[in-house]
């Protein structure tokens, strides 16, 4: 099995898992769930960090810097906004 085949294989399996992962979500959790998975999509920060090795040129390092900043905002802002939404629910339970 080639590496190409393996990574396409895991992509397909992970996609199927994603389809099955969510089936019933209470309406009040739609927005937090979207916000939470938005934060997870900031995983591309890992790509941006790896990409900081792509080249030594000004341009390469500059682009890596911008990519890291964008992705980190996505991650940190996304998780904090989600936490705020969920904190609002917490208070009213008791």
């Amino acid at each position: 099995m080639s590496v190409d085949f393996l990574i396409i294989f895991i992509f397909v399996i992970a996609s199927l898992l994603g389809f099955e992962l969510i089936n019933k979500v209470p309406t009040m959790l739609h927005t937090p769930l979207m916000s939470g998975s938005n934060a997870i999509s900031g995983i591309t920060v890992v790509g941006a960090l790896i990409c900081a090795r792509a080249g030594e040129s000004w341009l390469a390092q500059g682009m890596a810097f911008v990519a890291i900043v964008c992705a980190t905002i996505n991650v940190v802002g996304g998780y904090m906004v989600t936490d705020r939404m969920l904190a609002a629910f917490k208070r009213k339970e008791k």
Partner: protein
Amino acid sequence: MDYLYLLATLLFVWGIKGLTSLRTCKQGNRVSEVGMLLAIVTTLAIYGPISWGVVVAGLVVGTGLGVWIAVTTKTTQMPEMVGALNGLGGAASALVAIDFILESDVAKKAGVSLWDGEVVNAISTPITILIGMVTLTGSFVAFFKLGGTKMNHPLKGMQRHGLHALLGVLIVAFSFWEVLSDSHFGVSASTVLLTVVSGVLGVLLIVPIGGADMPVVISLLNSYSGLAGAASGFVIGSPLLIVVGALVGTSGIILSLIMCKAMNRSLGSVLLGGMGGDTAVAKDAKEYKSTRSAGPEEVAMLLDGAQSVIFVPGYGLAVAQAQHVVRELADLLQKRGATVRYAIHPVAGRMPGHMNVLLAESDVPYDQLWEMDRINGDFKNTDVAIVVGANDVVNPAAREATGPIAGMPILDVDQARTVVVVKRSLAPGYAGIKNPLFEAENCMMVFLDAKEALEGIVKEVKALD
């Protein structure tokens, strides 16, 4: 070390699953935060960067801005903020692919093209740039639209589809050029062109879609940013990115479908941008024959004798930020002996579930929030139903067999003894149609901004004692 990536992935799966249930949602988000931290630390440990300065500065600046955004965002603005954050994620993925290709051997050595290397790399590079850029520009259009900015597509009908098709053809052409070119100039030029055209396409695709459908659009773009992440994982050969991106991508599609179902819309009609487009607002106030208009005093008098009151909060309440005043009025009525509840339509607010967040933040007790299916049978035993800034979700026209909103689930407020509708004007909602409720004999219209009206009613109710 690589196994830590596997652990991070499992934490993300667990986290997403946790977010789908009320009992576990808070914990779920924590779990996924830990997964993210683990993924970042592991990456830094495995791949030491060329310049720690660039990486650390990037992380610090990004964290600072992220915290600032999260702390300063008002609860009513959260939906558009999620859109904007999502756009940045898309931008990051696109940049990774651009950086990768411009710095690869392909761009630097003459006579070698992307196609000569790994085929998967070659194909995923233009795809990452396309999806990442569409996510970036599309998300920002959604951000501005949810914020209330009006934007119109320059073209209509077939011309519009024609332009989009033309851009699509250009994107395919530039992608082939990028993949097959073996010169530095060819690779750079095609990459830049591909980036620009993809960005323009993102704007044009989202602009015709109406504000009411933006929640679904943001959810869908969120799914795209996951796919962009997965595609960038193919570019740099990271199984972590591929798996997590695919997870977010496909679960986002399912969430979009669930949202569409709650709004009685099909994904196709949302994307084509029919209903709710800024151009769809056609009918005006002249269509209403007899409506009964009332001021805060009359509403207060009505509430004086009411034993049971149901509030129906909608988009207008969120926009006017009247969630605190509505609770003040509810508390006041409760002290006077009335039963007070809130009827929450699945898509009330600016996004499904948004109204729950807003009201929860104003300390509205959990047991007063009733979902549509649980409360609909009770309207007929209710003295006063107060609709605050909602329109389509209480439109009885939805019960008819035909029409743009036929079959959409609605709150049966018209069955209450008296209905008070707080609304700035008789302008139609996003569906762009007339609401027969406003002409009903048991309906009183209060033509004021939600906050103003409720403040007025609070004052008058207090004056009753």
